[in-house]
């Protein structure tokens, strides 16, 4: 059924269709309407779930961590400083291998306070051990939320579904809400690997020593390093599982085909723009304009950011002469985080394209198509690394 609603409501429908059993959230702009919608679903009896109105984001993820450990399908959502406030829990959820799904409605981080969109919040959590996916529109939000539960529960790793605050969360667009019965076939009920149970007692997440250690029967149990190594290996394997789930989703619902990256006009492109989130759809217009001017331009949206799909990135970008990474986040004192990832993925190529980096849209600064066009055009006529530091678009110094 097609409806016209906001991105936050699209996410809420995804959570409802996924039959999340325990939801805990603390309101923060621009995530708030998602939280409100879910509490409405639960209070109206449309969702059989426990909605926990916690007193902080730290507790929101604590509730999810504990409920997931006790065998429930769990969901939370946050933005910006809320995500940072739950930071230790973000790492904990991944270390404990809990299939929690969290929407991050992307917003810039204080100080100074900003409520508007950029990607610094979720990018700051890229090394926490979660899977991170970025949606470009409302349809992707609802589809990704549903897939996120299957993905998380398949690999026992939590999933962050990131989408742009305001640009997607508060704008209204038509999207398809899948049939509940079809979602139920796609996503079976959660079967935890272990759930806290007095009949099968276990002491979870306790102090683990630097080295491996025998249990009371003499069998060797992993140490901290083995446990963390396994998380990394399973994350890398999740790249393939993301593709399998995308294929299953496409078979059931007819949408998908770009599980890792979403290329537009990249096949013959000389210069390809790369970015996260809804910006890649805005850049499609710029690509069309550049093509009219005679430049062979393309854009590649990164859908799966962690684990980083370096193979898909290489396959899409390696033939181009130049890559332009547009980023709404920055590894302060160095460069854009995605820029570093792209350079690293391309390092193995025989004929490496040059890679440029633009920082833009921080704290909701307007991203004007004319500015994108100028920057992209300049990159189309560039011949290599003309500067080592990222350039800034729309900066008014």
């Amino acid at each position, binding site marked *: 059924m097609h409806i016209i609603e906001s991105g936050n409501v699209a996410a809420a429908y995804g959570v409802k269709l996924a039959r999340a*059993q325990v939801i805990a959230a603390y309101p923060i702009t621009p995530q708030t309407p998602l939280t409100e919608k879910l509490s409405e679903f639960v209070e109206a009896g449309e969702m059989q779930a426990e909605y926990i109105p916690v007193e*902080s984001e730290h507790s929101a993820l604590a509730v999810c*961590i*504990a409920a997931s*450990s006790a065998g*429930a399908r769990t969901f939370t959502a946050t933005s910006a400083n809320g995500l940072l406030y739950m930071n230790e829990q973000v790492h904990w959820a991944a270390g404990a291998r809990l299939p929690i799904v969290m929407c991050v409605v992307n917003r810039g981080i204080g100080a100074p306070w900003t409520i508007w969109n950029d990607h610094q919040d979720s990018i700051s959590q890229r090394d926490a051990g979660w899977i991170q996916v970025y949606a470009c529109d409302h349809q992707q939000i609802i589809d990704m939320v549903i897939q996120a539960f299957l993905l998380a529960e398949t690999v026992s790793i939590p999933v962050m579904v990131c989408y742009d605050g305001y640009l997607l969360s508060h704008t209204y667009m038509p999207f398809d809400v899948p049939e509940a019965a079809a979602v139920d076939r796609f996503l079976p009920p959660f079967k935890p690997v272990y759930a806290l149970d*007095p009949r099968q*007692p*276990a002491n979870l997440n306790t102090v683990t020593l630097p080295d491996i*250690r025998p249990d009371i029967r003499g069998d060797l149990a992993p140490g901290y390093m083995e446990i963390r190594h396994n998380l990394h290996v399973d994350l890398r394997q999740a790249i393939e599982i993301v593709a399998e789930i995308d294929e299953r989703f496409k078979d059931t619902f007819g949408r998908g085909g770009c599980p890792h990256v979403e290329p537009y006009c990249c096949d013959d492109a000389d210069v390809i723009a790369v970015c996260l989130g809804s910006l890649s759809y805005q850049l499609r217009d710029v690509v069309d304009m550049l093509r009219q001017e005679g430049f062979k331009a393309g854009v590649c949206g990164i859908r799966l950011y962690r684990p980083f799909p370096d193979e898909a990135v290489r396959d899409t970008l390696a033939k181009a002469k130049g890559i332009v990474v547009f980023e709404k986040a920055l590894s302060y004192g160095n460069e854009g985080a995605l820029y570093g990832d792209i350079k690293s993925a391309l390092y193995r190529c025989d004929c490496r394209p040059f890679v440029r980096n633009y920082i833009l849209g921080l704290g909701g600064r307007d991203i004007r198509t004319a500015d994108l066009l100028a920057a992209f055009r300049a990159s189309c006529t560039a011949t290599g690394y003309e500067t080592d530091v990222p350039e800034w678009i729309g900066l008014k110094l």
Partner: protein
Amino acid sequence: MSAKTTILTLPEEELVHPGHRACAGCGLSILYRFGLKALGRDTILVVPPSCLTVLQGLYPIAATQLPCLNVTFASTAAAATGIIAALKVRGKEDITVAAWAGDGGTSDIGIQALSGACERGDNFIFICYDNEAYMNTGVQRSGTTPQGVITTTTPIHGKPQQKKDMPAIMAAHTISYVATGSAAYPLDVYDKIKKAKTIEGPKYIHLHTPCPPGWGFDTRYTVKVGRLAVETGLFDLYEIEHGVFRLTGASKKLLGKERKPVAAYFETQTRFRALTRARISAIQRQVDEKWAGYEA
């Protein structure tokens, strides 16, 4: 009210394995052993970083026979909420959820989550074992360290501030059951936890927990020191059931009687060595005033 449990009627089944990692003479090890007997097998524990984390053992060996979720420091009560919610959606509401934290995990870093869970009215027991400093990290001052106590972060003059009255803070949440207990009176603790299990909503039990290395007394005097805290009227055993306060056990027996001087308690521990005579007299006056209130 049911009859008081005695050493003869206490269940024999042990839910703590021998060989746990607590220090010799640890007050917590007494409380944990009796507490688990009272909670029973159908219980899920939630434990933040604390001496209890260590007592329960290092992976893959555990001293507890109950399922336990170790959680981040500030999240104990919220984690209890999460387990309760999961048990509810899975139709397993007959399981008791008990959070067990130290004084830091309760009154300092853990107080926000605890306050939130109590305001929501979640059905769990929160047990605070109060050894009156951050013992697991090496005896740093906490919110519940008494005034004048030498710790590793108040090393010369002693803590300038008063002890935070955590049970009173919990009572102000108007929860159904608040109780205090002491490692020196474990059967009283057993009965209070048993009672808490029968009451719906949040229950808070605050346990005075002597700590030989942190307080500076010989390991054989744990019970003696714990008793002196009660007998001098410094730490009182009581219940606040549905808002009604009453002294219990050894504290109730002190009503109308002469209490031991607080100095008798202070003398047993090196942590009070910075207390001056004037300070001790002032504390004695405070205790006398508090007890005058009880007697009234």
